[in-house]
């Protein structure tokens, strides 16, 4: 309702990606649902750390009460966040950590995300064999954090080898071409780990009638649906909720209301939903949501952190809209 008293600034640097769009919608929905926010001020475009600094400084100029930011880089926007804190603005980083000590962080644990999925995958492979490792965008910090987790799991399974490592750039078409090229080489593999570009991989395997090896992906609506519907597919979806954005808004509002959390950093631990066990299948079934755009993560809410309804996040309307 318009009775809210705060203005919240939001800064995001990737546009046109389903996950990020859901994050922004979660922020809007949560701001609306909380009833405490009068206005959202959103800077949402494709840019780099320097561009995000610009956005943050513009938000400071706009005199917002809090800034929720998905950082382009943990260290690169330190100066801007410091200025914001100095100006009396509450700063909350979501999705990834930041190095600015005064900022609060509520984040998906990217390293754990990769570790969890990879460990499950290597287990499914029987602890040996060749894995096709499909990373995100070269040079992105989320990608290098996930790489750490993947390598950690790999170290625990000495008999698992990386058959091929590619960067999908988090692009569906590129990933599909890469997997098809790879399949054409006839190199046998025993599992595929993806950094969230998952449903096109399943499609590619099905289309080219290649053996369905175990696949790990993210909890995107498309992939989660495939895990239940594609016959013979064994796989797992690791949650990476875009709704973390809503949690960020909640955290910011709590701080504005004087309820500071115990620590600066709150980590949202990923979950793994696999379709190899009945228990896992049930979770998947519960989570599946064919009505969502296939690029949207199905975990559209985070218990304890978000209070909006599905309709609200899907409507994607903030206060005053």
């Amino acid at each position, binding site marked *: 309702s318009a009775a809210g008293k705060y203005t919240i600034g939001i800064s995001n640097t990737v546009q046109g990606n389903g996950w990020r769009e859901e994050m922004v919608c979660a922020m809007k929905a949560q701001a609306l649902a909380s009833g405490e926010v009068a206005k959202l001020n959103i800077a949402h475009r494709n840019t780099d750390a320097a561009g995000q600094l610009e956005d943050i400084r513009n938000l400071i100029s706009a005199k917002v009460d809090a800034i929720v930011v998905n950082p382009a880089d943990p260290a690169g926007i330190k100066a801007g966040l410091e200025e914001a804190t100095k100006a009396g603005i509450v700063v909350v980083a979501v999705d990834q950590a930041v190095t600015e000590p005064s900022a609060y962080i509520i984040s998906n644990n990217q390293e754990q995300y990769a570790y969890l999925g990879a460990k499950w995958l290597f287990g499914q492979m029987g602890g040996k064999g060749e894995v096709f490792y499909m990373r995100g965008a070269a040079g992105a910090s989320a990608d290098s954090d996930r790489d750490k987790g993947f390598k950690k799991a790999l170290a625990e399974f000495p008999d698992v080898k990386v058959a*091929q490592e590619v960067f999908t750039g988090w692009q569906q078409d590129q990933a599909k071409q890469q997997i098809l090229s790879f399949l*054409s080489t006839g190199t046998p593999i025993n599992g595929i780990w993806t950094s969230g570009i998952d449903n096109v991989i399943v*499609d590619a395997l099905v289309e080219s009638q290649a053996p369905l090896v175990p696949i790990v992906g993210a909890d995107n609506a498309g992939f989660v649906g495939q895990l239940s519907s594609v016959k013979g597919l064994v796989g797992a979806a690791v949650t990476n909720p875009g709704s973390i954005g809503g949690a960020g808004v909640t955290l910011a509002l709590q701080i504005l209301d004087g309820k500071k959390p115990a620590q600066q950093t709150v980590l949202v631990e990923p979950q793994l939903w696999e379709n190899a066990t009945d228990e896992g299948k049930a979770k998947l079934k519960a989570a599946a949501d064919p009505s969502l755009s296939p690029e949207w993560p199905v975990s559209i809410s985070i218990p304890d952190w978000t209070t909006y309804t599905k309709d609200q996040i899907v409507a994607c309307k903030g206060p005053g809209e």
Partner: protein
Amino acid sequence: MSTTAISPQPVPFGRRVKRFMADRPLIPLIILLVILVVILQVLRPGIVNERWIANTIKFAIPLAILAGCQTMTMLTGGIDLSIGTVATMSAFIMATQIVNQDPAVAFALAMMPAVLIGLVNGIGVGVFRVHPLIMTLGTSLIGTGCLQVYQRTVIASGARIPDFLAWLGTGLTYGIPNALLLFVPLAALIVFTLSRTGFGRLLYAVGDNERATRLSGVQYWQVITALYVISSVLAGITGLLYIGLIKAPSLSLAEPLVLPSVAAAVIGGTSIFGGRGGYTGTIIGALILTVLTTLLTILQMPEGARRILFGLIVLFVTAAYLRIVEER
């Protein structure tokens, strides 16, 4: 000390081969393509099989059509950076409208932004004389914004890939990609248009010397408007084909194809300054780029080194091609 100018000696073999290739610029391009394929086969014996060829063709086709848009606009000295956005828009709209619309209606809705953006581009470039790069960049920004606004209204209804498009995009008949059913006539039409129709002639002439065409009675804005509309419609069709291939609508679906489409046209011998080039070369250019991507994907090396290699090969191929085709 006076040197004889032209001696009636038989022309050396090397020179003859060169002249032969210079007259048929497609041959050196095809040779370059074959060389890449051979390298691929040497690196991964057995990779060049029926399935690989089908895959390569499937991915080369959308690129080739978009590069066709680029070829035609480049002939007039322009460039169309909005094709990525247009293709994405029509793909996204198709996938979301098909859920509760008649296929024909969905198709019409999907092609609407394409026609509209093409028209705006054409009027901006042809009537107001805005530089094509800026004009198409601007409309592509506007289009992206509109798509995002639109996207919010359809999140709830979800998306579906029409079976026909999936069949066209990914299906094989007797091992031959169905997409060729669309592409072969389309390519033939483009080649025919460029070489044997008045409109095609005008594209070359306008790109070469606009004042001269004006004095010959050509109305620039008509040619340019028609061109950008055609380019946009082709891009829209590509979007539909592409969504059938990728099967995942996203808001940046076809954007990654824009720079490669320019590269494919240039590798294929079309001049970025207008007036020179053709579509057959562009098709080979698209194939070369697609094979090159495969080649680099299967190479085991750091991503940085891969990109360096990609850049160097593109440069080398274009330079070698120019060397061979140039007469002096």
